[in-house]
């Protein structure tokens, strides 16, 4: 089975233009749409291909799963027990920001939630830029895996934080 990158005709690299990905998904979607076939067996086959394409699209869209895919291609294990532990300074920073977010949520302090989210987005963008650089132009076997894994771990923390901040803001908007 082709990798999600190959499926959409994209280079296997971290720096990915989401607009290009979207366009590639639309193009592929047209050619494998189940409605294009009249034969039931062919329709089923196309439906399966569409599912694979949708999963691949989602995996590439999310920087965390995109990085995980690239590690997999490089033969580097990720996940539980395979990644370096975050530094004490990083954990302290995340704990303090999560506490500040929880307090702002309780006191309904929208400005603080937005400011914290903006700060984390800056940190996230820096981690994504670092990953782009580490994955750019290297053959998988030459990947400098340890620093790249540190950035992947950081990205998961940032994603968690931003999910929490977004959920808080959405809740207030709905109220």
């Amino acid at each position: 089975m082709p990798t999600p990158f190959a499926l959409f005709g994209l280079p296997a690299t971290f720096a990915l233009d989401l607009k290009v990905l979207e366009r590639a998904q639309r193009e592929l979607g047209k050619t494998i749409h189940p409605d294009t076939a009249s034969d039931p067996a062919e329709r089923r086959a196309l439906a399966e291909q569409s599912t694979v394409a949708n999963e691949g699209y989602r995996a590439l869209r999310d920087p965390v799963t995109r990085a995980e895919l690239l590690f997999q291609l490089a033969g580097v294990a990720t996940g539980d027990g395979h990644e370096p532990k975050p530094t004490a300074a990083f954990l302290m920073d995340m704990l303090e920001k999560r506490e500040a977010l929880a307090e702002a949520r309780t006191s309904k302090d929208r400005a603080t939630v937005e400011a914290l989210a903006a700060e984390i987005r800056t940190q996230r963008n820096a981690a994504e830029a670092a990953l782009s650089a580490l994955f750019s132009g290297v053959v998988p076997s030459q990947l400098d895996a340890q620093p790249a894994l540190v950035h992947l771990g950081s990205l998961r923390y940032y994603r968690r934080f931003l999910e929490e901040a977004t959920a808080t803001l959405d809740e207030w908007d709905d109220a």
Partner: protein
Amino acid sequence: MAYSDKVIEHAENPRNVGTLNKDDDSVGTGLVGAPACGDVMRLQIKVGENGVIEDAKFKTFGCGSAIASSSLATEWIKGKSIDEAEAIKNSDIVAELNLPPVKIHCSVLAEDAIKSAIADYRAKQAAKKAVTEGAK
């Protein structure tokens, strides 16, 4: 995935949430994280002269199992000597909370947090002793 009743109970009514003064030399602080899921856990112990843990507090940002594991850990270590607390294994937490395989790392995190808090306490005591002896 369904959480066990004990996990839900601890996650909804976590025991010992809070902070101890990390600058107090009878307080040990453990700060640990699981990069695979983005969890962060702080566990603190206050140790009496007799080496018994008088108080324990935690703060965890993570899933219900991570909160329950650290809540249970603080409950268990209170009143224990630091040596007894250090002997607690993540498998004890798994058994008590009935954690499924995908959540075992939460119990590992809690065990690491206990050990890291004890290590911090011991390092502080050693530093204190060095200062006292140096003054003699």
